[in-house]
């Protein structure tokens, strides 16, 4: 019995022994001697072995035994038919592996418990702008809310996940990812050190010191326990190591960095208003976010004076913020994988159905001989289970390999959800198991439905050539596969074209021989420090091989390849009757001759000159001009009104230095002076090495305290930046290709099966004078209407999901008739090709032979 402790055979044996002892004693009492009494007892009992056997059988779980033998049988059968098993297992494994990877990504963003104290009270502060929420509010707003609003328990600031350089003693530099946060974030994240301490007040006051991530400490410093107190040269500045974070420590909204740095507390209100960053708010418990927004708005109103415009505060839950930050690329590929799982299941179900149809004679005989339907169902279920389990094991392995290689393969892979160490083996296994059960049920149920419709007497009479099995189920599955393949291919083609357009759009500047050099400073900027340097650029330009050079500040992407820095100084223009007032512009500082160096063409006005450093002038790009509502060609000579009127001296064409997204940022360029340059752009004929030597020597003479960091040629960066796009297209292509292959094979198998079962009918037709063209046409038509139906449904699904797809597309509409038409034609063509072989077989049927076979 279930739940009851099973009795041991030894206990049964001792009961028999006690029985024999009792009986012996009784025989002894009636006069037999000891030995005779014992034998008499044994005789009376009969065969002890049989009794033991019966006990053993009664004790066992019969159904478990039956299941065991069924499993063994199914396994043997599947091994014996590799032509059926191999495609089924491979197809399912691919689908299951993809689905599991999708699950782990989904889990890390939406399902797991976030490891922060009071995680459900933590929000990201955003500001609502006409173009949507802006995730980088000014520090001034965040701090003011923390100070004035009683609803806020703690405010935390976070500055970008950026690439820095760890300069080794030999002088070579190693790129490391750094993340900076303030005391509030340290508290909100609930960080704990495994060695040393966290940042203390003096670190936040000076901005000095670093904390290492556990992974970095383990992999790069060999888990050195004496590391605290030593220094690390980060970006040309020696920083004391204060501690090592606990293993798996996490900062909200940030991937695991190598090195953590403190955000230096800002003291001047003006600086806080000018600086933006990611801000976290932890509300007091019991406070509803909707209730606090009006109170937040009141605080923002009071700040308007200092800022010059109103920042409308909004709140995003941590999960929503995570979902927004999650890399779309990954979800696209995972979505394709999940869709592929559906298709794979349909395909394998088709294989199962075909097998069930092949065996319908055997099944009918079994049923006629009285086999219970339930046992047949069990047989199918077990077969499905074996295939699903083997596939799941294979898929699980595939998923691990896939996740690992994706992490290494995709640039910034370690920042992708599901790959960034928040990996949940148990969850993935459970999810996989749930899928296995579902698929098993499906694979077991489908042949059962067919059996229920089986006309036994007919099936048995007709023998192996039974036509009584209907192919409706398989037809539906083949149509479903075509639908899914169409949907996948449409999405792939649209995304592919969109990514291609994005990767090949005109950049608006000349990349040839242009290099970008990151500048590394050995000290922090002092408040109010000016950054004019009249000596450096002329000295550099005077060197041989240097054609032109310019210093810049604030280009997104300068912080690291492909990773947009989340910190930037965004200028907002006063609310003075100008629509630009409500639109944040990316503020970029440029030295003289910057546009000339970059090769960006001016539409109006002039480039910056050296003397502009002291003046209030700016240049806009086309996008900013458009957003500001200036009629085209009328911006030059106009001024922005603010504390100081700023004259617009020119307008430049839009250009994309870094391909960080589809849209063009509105930009306002100002002369360097109050901005510390962070990059140097040089157009030269020198090699990288010579260039570095030249720049270093000029910097030593004219730019003290600065060293050149990495030197990247813009051509290379461009190639690197389009790499992820090419990878996505490649991955989608693989899935899409596999999908149409499966769908085509499914169709071909179905038609071929139908031809062999209709051999006799086709033979009679041929005898009665049907030409082979007619027979070919008939079979092709069968294939065509199935393909057509599938493609039609797929197109409808693609159009219906266009609204969701559109947000991922750049430069192409989701209902682009050319793309959809091309996909539809391709699939119809493939449908025709895959019907061709069965059609030719139908035509080659020898009527006499076909009729004789009956």
């Amino acid at each position: 019995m279930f739940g009851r402790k099973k009795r041991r055979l030894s206990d049964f044996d001792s009961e028999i022994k006690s029985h024999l002892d009792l009986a012996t004693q009784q025989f002894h009492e009636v006069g037999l001697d000891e030995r005779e009494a014992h034998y008499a007892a044994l005789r009376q009992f009969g065969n002890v072995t049989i009794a033991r056997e019966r006990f053993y059988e009664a004790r066992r779980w019969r159904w478990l035994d039956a299941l065991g033998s069924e499993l063994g049988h199914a396994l043997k059968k599947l091994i014996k038919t590799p032509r059926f098993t191999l495609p089924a297992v491979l197809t399912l494994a691919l689908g299951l592996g993809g689905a599991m990877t999708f699950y782990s990504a989904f889990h890390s963003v939406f399902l797991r418990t976030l490891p922060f104290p009071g995680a459900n009270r933590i929000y990201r502060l955003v500001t609502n702008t006409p173009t949507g929420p802006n995730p980088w509010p000014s520090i001034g707003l965040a701090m003011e809310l923390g100070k004035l609003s009683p609803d806020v328990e703690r405010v935390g600031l976070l500055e970008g996940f950026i690439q820095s350089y760890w300069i080794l003693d030999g002088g070579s530099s190693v790129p490391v990812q750094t993340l900076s946060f303030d005391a509030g974030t340290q508290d909100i994240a609930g960080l704990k050190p495994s060695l040393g301490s966290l940042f203390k007040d003096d670190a936040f006051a000076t901005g000095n010191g670093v904390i290492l991530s556990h992974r970095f400490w383990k992999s790069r410093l060999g888990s050195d326990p004496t590391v605290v107190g030593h220094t690390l040269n980060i970006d040309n500045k020696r920083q004391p190591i204060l501690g090592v974070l606990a293993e798996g420590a996490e900062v909200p909204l940030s991937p695991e960095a190598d090195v953590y740095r403190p955000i230096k507390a800002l003291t001047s209100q003006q600086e806080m208003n000018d600086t933006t960053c990611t801000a976290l708010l932890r509300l007091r418990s019991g406070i509803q976010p909707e209730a606090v927004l009006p109170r937040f708005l009141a605080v923002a109103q009071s700040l308007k004076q200092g800022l010059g415009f109103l920042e409308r505060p909004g709140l995003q839950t941590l999960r929503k913020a995570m979902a927004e930050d999650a890399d779309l690329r990954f979800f696209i590929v995972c979505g394709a994988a999940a869709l592929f799982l559906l298709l794979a299941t349909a395909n394998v179900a088709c294989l199962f159905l075909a097998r069930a149809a092949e065996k319908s004679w055997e099944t009918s005989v079994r049923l006629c001989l009285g086999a219970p339907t339930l046992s047949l169902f069990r047989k199918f279920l077990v077969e499905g289970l074996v295939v699903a389990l083997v596939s799941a094991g294979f898929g699980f392995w595939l998923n691990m390999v896939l996740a690992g290689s994706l992490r290494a393969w995709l640039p910034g892979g370690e920042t992708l959800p599901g790959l960034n160490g928040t990996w949940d083996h148990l969850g993935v296994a459970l999810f996989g198991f749930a899928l296995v059960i579902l698929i098993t049920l499906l694979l077991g149920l489908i042949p059962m439905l067919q059996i229920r419709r089986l006309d036994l007497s007919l099936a048995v009479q007709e023998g192996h050539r039974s036509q009584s099995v209907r192919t409706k189920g398989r037809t539906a599955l083949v149509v479903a596969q075509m639908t899914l393949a169409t949907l996948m291919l449409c999405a792939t083609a649209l995304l592919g074209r969109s990514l291609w357009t994005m990767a090949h759009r005109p950049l608006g500047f000349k990349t040839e021989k242009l290099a970008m050099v990151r500048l590394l400073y050995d000290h922090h900027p002092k408040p109010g420090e000016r950054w004019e340097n009249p000596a450096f650029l002329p000295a550099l330009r005077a060197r041989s091989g240097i054609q032109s050079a310019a210093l810049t500040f604030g280009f997104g992407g300068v912080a690291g390849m492909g990773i947009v820095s989340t910190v930037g100084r965004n200028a907002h223009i006063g609310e003075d009757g100008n629509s630009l007032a409500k639109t944040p512009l990316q503020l970029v500082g440029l030295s003289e001759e910057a546009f000339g160096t970059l090769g960006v063409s001016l539409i109006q006005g002039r480039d910056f000159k050296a003397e502009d450093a002291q003046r209030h002038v700016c240049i806009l790009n086309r996008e900013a001009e458009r957003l500001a509502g200036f009629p085209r060609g009328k911006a030059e000579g106009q001024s922005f009104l603010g504390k100081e009127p700023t004259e617009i001296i020119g307008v430049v064409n839009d250009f994309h230095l870094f391909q960080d997204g589809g849209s063009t940022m509105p930009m306002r360029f100002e002369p360097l002076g109050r901005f510390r340059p962070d990059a140097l752009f040089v157009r030269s004929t020198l090699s990288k090495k010579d260039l570095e030597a030249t720049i270093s020597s000029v910097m030593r003479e004219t730019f003290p305290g600065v060293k050149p960091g990495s030197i990247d040629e813009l051509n290379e960066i461009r190639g690197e930046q389009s790499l992820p796009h090419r990878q996505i297209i490649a991955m989608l292509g693989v899935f899409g290709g596999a999908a149409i292959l499966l769908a085509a094979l499914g169709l071909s198998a179905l038609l071929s099966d139908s031809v062999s079962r209709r051999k006799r009918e086709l033979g009679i037709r041929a005898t009665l004078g049907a030409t082979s063209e007619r027979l070919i046409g008939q079979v092709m038509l069968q294939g065509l209407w199935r393909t057509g139906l599938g493609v039609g449904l797929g197109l409808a699904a693609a159009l219906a999901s266009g609204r969701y797809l559109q947000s991922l597309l750049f430069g192409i509409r989701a209902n682009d008739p050319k793309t959809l038409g091309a996909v539809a034609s391709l699939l119809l063509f493939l449908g025709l090709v895959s019907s061709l072989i069965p059609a030719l077989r139908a035509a080659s049927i020898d009527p006499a032979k076909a009729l004789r076979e009956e």
Partner: protein
Amino acid sequence: MTTQEKERLTILQGTLDLLILRILILGPQHGQGIARAIQSQSDDVLLVDHGSLYPALQRLENRGWVAAEWGSSDNNRKARFYTLTKQGRKYLAQQTSQWRRMSKAIGRILGPEPAEG
């Protein structure tokens, strides 16, 4: 083989369970005791095959109709004692009435017993 032994009957299939339960109504008993009780109460007509007795007891225990516990017998020997459970009692009542109806029906078909001699 004595005449008495020849006249002994092997128990009909399916009735052993019923007999065991009936014996246990008198109180806990071990396997040997049950076999002896069946034999003596049937005036030595019914012979219990000991080889079937224990698997049958195990079956009844599995179904929850009897419960078993090790104890010591009258002459201080270790033995496994079986007790009728509440479920077993219910099953016994049900089966007894069924058996009575059945034997009556069979009796009617076979007709009255012929006079002995």
